[in-house]
């Protein structure tokens, strides 16, 4: 059975997560410190506002994609497929990543402020989930782990 999403959707997901990973890393004041921003063509990574806006724009795209694919899965695709534990783990990681990102967006609104400790908790967990999502993606490629399986297929693959 084919994957329910096309390669175009998968490519969009990969591009968005790559954009988010790069612009997210650029939010830490480490790139200036370790000089990648002085590399030709990479100077834009040192512009906090630019990378911040790109991160937000990428988040908008990813949230839309999550809503779209999640809805299609719930309404249609899950009838013939079921998530494996690996798929559940990836989906939960993605949801947690989105929730912590949303919390940070909320904190950044003009009328909302959190304590340093709450903000650190949100930031660190956001970073942790991003690393976990990337690790799971690498594991998927390395181990060819399955995210879903056709319903009724109980074979151990």
């Amino acid at each position, binding site marked *: 059975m*084919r994957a329910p*999403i096309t390669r175009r959707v*998968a490519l969009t997901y990969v591009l968005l997560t790559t954009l988010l990973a790069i612009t997210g890393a650029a939010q830490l004041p480490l790139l200036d410190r370790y000089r990648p921003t002085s590399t030709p063509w990479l100077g834009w990574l040192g512009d906090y*506002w630019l990378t*911040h806006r790109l991160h937000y724009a990428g988040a908008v795209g990813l949230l839309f994609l999550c809503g779209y694919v999640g809805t299609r899965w719930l309404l249609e695709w899950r009838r013939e497929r079921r998530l494996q534990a690996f798929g559940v783990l990836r989906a939960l990681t993605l949801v947690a990543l989105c929730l912590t990102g949303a919390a940070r967006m909320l904190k950044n*609104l003009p009328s909302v402020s959190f304590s340093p400790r709450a903000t650190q908790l949100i930031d660190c967990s956001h970073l942790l989930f991003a690393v976990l999502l990337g690790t799971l993606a690498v594991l998927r490629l390395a181990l060819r782990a399955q*995210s879903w399986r056709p319903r009724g297929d109980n074979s151990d693959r």
Partner: protein
Amino acid sequence: MLSSFAVFTVYINVIVARREGALRVLRPGAKGIYSRAFLDVLFQTGARQVIVHDSRSAGISRRRFLTTLGAAGLSLLTPGTALAQKHRSKSPAGLELATLLDLSKCTGCGACVEACRRVNAAKFPHPEGPIAPTPSGSPPVEDWSARREVTDRLTPYNWLFIQTARGSFEGEKFQIHIPRRCMHCQNPPCANLCPWGAAAREDNGAVRIDPGACVGGGKCQDVCPWGFPMRQSGVGPYLKILPRFFGNGVMYMCDRCQDRVAVGGLPACVDACPNGVQEMGPRAEITARAHALARNMSGYVYGDTENGGTNTFYVSPVPFEILDAAVRTGPGRPRLAAPADVAADEDRLAYAALLAPVAGVIAGALRLGSRFAGPEPPARGHGEDADDGRGDSGGPR
């Protein structure tokens, strides 16, 4: 079902908001879902009128209402938010306060600078021993501990200094003294972009940096339109992590004497001024007074709209563009230009992000863009296609 869920969610949020004191602002005479009568009926809150929090409007705005509920809802998810409530409660009544500086009265005597240094001396950094540079040399070590006496610019030991502008305007010579320190923005970029949450905006409108959380990356200084925060290397939590590879000290700037204001006092600079240059009060009141003062002296206001609005208002008989050109600027000596609201795009994108998953759900439910996502491929039996949950590139399934 969705509407029931939405009502339940709002109900929970309001309960939490009430319990933690977040639901405090109700506009008398508000209509619709913001009215006291509506909340009373729906949630039996006996909703209390407390104070006007946002001086931009006469009461609660839809934006504040939603963000308050959102913040309260988040408290269900993040245990640390209870700390946030405690943190915020330090401000008396949560009223947004602003300061007004009548520059026509300032003689540049420096009493405010002296008072600031004296009152905040206990907060100043105390680096010990040699400060190790970073391997890349970036950011450079900034050690002001041997130059604590410097008062003609901002430093980690001098959070307020007096800038002097001399020139002529409309054929008359002028000399204007401008006490400079953090403007305490309403939407502070330093607090929004600090990756450690060390910079935060208090409910009373002040912005401050927590020296116990700051690692001195200096991003706040980069994104501040005026570059107010100043770094002192060799102090702070970074020393306990990876001092040569991570962080570089602590950023310091005016916190508008939070400890004094929290107990109903005034910032030291306001209190000490012998000429009554400065005053402090609710932002709405200060805004009105600033504009009235400007009208009376045919003068100009700075701080009301700069960077989207600040809680520091300067009123001068000379246009600020002229003052900006006349003052000495550079590191630690901020300009008087009129920066645009650098965080406005961020807010718009945040609201777009709020709508994006909803739009995605609607599009998914209506199967919009199914050509993009791919029409449901015919089931050809297990094993007929190579892409069986492993082959695609890993989008959310």
